């Protein structure tokens, strides 16, 4: 069970996109690029019988292990993982919810720094993903382009001279590339200016979505900006479109924060302090409320309203208080009510320790 041991190790490390550094890290959480690829000589997943899925998985596994650094990657048979482990990988953004919940031969390869993951037999045979902390799409592209070249030296991709890389869904054909940047926009939410963001995105055909956790609640004021089209533009151009729009959104968020500080300093300081206070003292707390309050606290840290807490620690709390992480860290399976109690206990322990005060007992 070497794989299981290594998976548990992930729970104790911070993971690339939680590092909280990189350019513009106060607002840009992470930069991510994924490429959809398929082997030329197999049907797409929805049409592939189980024996084909197994053969695809084997071909890709062998190819991954042969690439540079491939032998150091953690290769997990997703079908064999239990529900909590699958959910844990979803929460860390290493696999998709779909990949966690589907059935049949499928896998994921993860590099030790958690910057690279390769999903095998998701909607496409391969979904390669590179994730960096902060606003840094060029390095993400350099890395994923290289990984793609290495994979391609081992397998034959489905490619059409006019349509590019062929994918199971026509919305991904061409480059097969999705570029996305995750932003933390609490001040734009508070000042009800998100409209402006969405309007600017429409002009360049970019998509926006909220980040979701447990249940259906939009949480933590996190928004993801990504390209909508994949055909007819080069990879560089698709990246450029996102790279050009993000600084504008960052500027709006900064201005909204400045406005809040200037025009309603007491009110903002109060909201941030109350959020911090609840997180440090609550006895039971839902995932939704935690995300909501942590968002306020994160903004407060960035604005200097809270001075005894660091951004990486806050970023970590966002993930560690998610249901599967909480269960991995505490080492037991918990139902919703027990999770809420354990979450509050975890928050009290972490926040009172981070703040340098005596760690509260339980």
């Amino acid at each position, binding site marked *: 069970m070497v794989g299981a041991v290594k998976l548990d190790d992930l729970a104790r490390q911070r993971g690339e996109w939680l590092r909280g550094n990189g350019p513009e890290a106060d607002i840009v959480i992470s930069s991510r690029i994924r490429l959809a690829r398929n082997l030329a000589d197999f049907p797409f997943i929805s049409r592939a019988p189980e024996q084909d899925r197994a053969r695809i998985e084997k071909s890709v596994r062998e190819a991954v292990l042969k690439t540079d650094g491939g032998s150091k990657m953690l290769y997990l048979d997703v079908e064999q993982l239990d529900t909590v482990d699958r959910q844990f990988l979803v929460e860390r953004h290493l696999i998709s919810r779909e990949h966690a919940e589907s059935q049949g031969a499928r896998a994921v390869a993860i590099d030790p720094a958690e910057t690279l993951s390769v999903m095998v037999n998701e*909607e496409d045979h391969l979904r390669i993903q590179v994730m960096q902390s902060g606003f840094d799409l060029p390095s993400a592209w350099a890395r994923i382009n290289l990984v793609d070249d290495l994979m391609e030296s081992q397998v034959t991709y489905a490619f059409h001279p006019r349509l590019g890389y062929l994918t199971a869904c026509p919305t991904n054909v061409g480059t097969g590339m999705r570029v996305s940047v995750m932003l933390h926009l609490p001040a734009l939410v508070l000042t009800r200016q998100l409209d402006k963001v969405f309007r600017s995105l429409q002009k360049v055909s970019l998509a926006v979505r909220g980040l979701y956790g447990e249940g259906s609640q*939009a949480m933590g004021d996190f928004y993801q900006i990504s390209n909508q089209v994949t055909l007819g533009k080069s990879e560089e151009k698709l990246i450029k479109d996102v790279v050009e729009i993000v600084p504008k959104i960052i500027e709006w968020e900064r201005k909204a924060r400045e406005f809040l500080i200037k025009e309603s300093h007491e009110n903002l300081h109060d909201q941030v302090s109350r959020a911090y206070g609840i997180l440090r003292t609550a006895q039971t707390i839902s995932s939704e409320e935690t995300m909501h309050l942590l968002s306020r606290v994160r903004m407060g840290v960035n604005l200097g309203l809270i001075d005894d807490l660091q951004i990486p620690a806050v970023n970590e709390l966002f993930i560690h208080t998610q249901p599967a992480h909480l269960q991995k860290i505490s080492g037991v399976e918990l139902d919703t009510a027990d999770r809420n109690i354990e979450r509050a206990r975890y928050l009290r322990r972490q926040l009172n320790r981070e703040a340098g005060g005596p760690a509260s007992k339980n």
Partner: protein
Amino acid sequence: MKCQKCDKPATFHITELTSGKPAELHLCEEHAREYLTQSPGEPASASNMAAALAHQLAQQMAVGQTAEELAQLDQQACPVCGITFHEFRSQGRLGCPHDYVAFEAQLGPLLLNIHGEGEHTGKIPKRCPQGSEKRTQLIRLRREMSEAVAEERYERAKELRDEIQRIENSGAG
């Protein structure tokens, strides 16, 4: 692409993950604002990607075609993987790389609709810059070979096996 709630062009493209599976929304400015100002707890009544695609295709097909022609089109099948156009239309997912060739006439306008462009201008793989169509034919050949074996047509199965091996070993696209 039209807004899913009215006839105006869709200028907002939103992916929701509320129900566990991603669902895409294509809305005009007005409906996007309405949607985005909904309280976050309210699950969006979004149709999923397959439904959106099916809807788009249905609209596209309905123009200037009789019911008979549509029924005929629906029955068209890819010679490589066997998926019918109707199956693609209802699932929103293609069956194999050859579908892009087999359903070219229908997919062309759909791709233009989705991407606003019809030709790839990005990265080209070193291995098969001219396309991997030949290798995709392996899907059909392997299927024919197992059918031949099942029907005890061993002479034909042997021919197919040789052809498969030739393509596999050539490393060609």
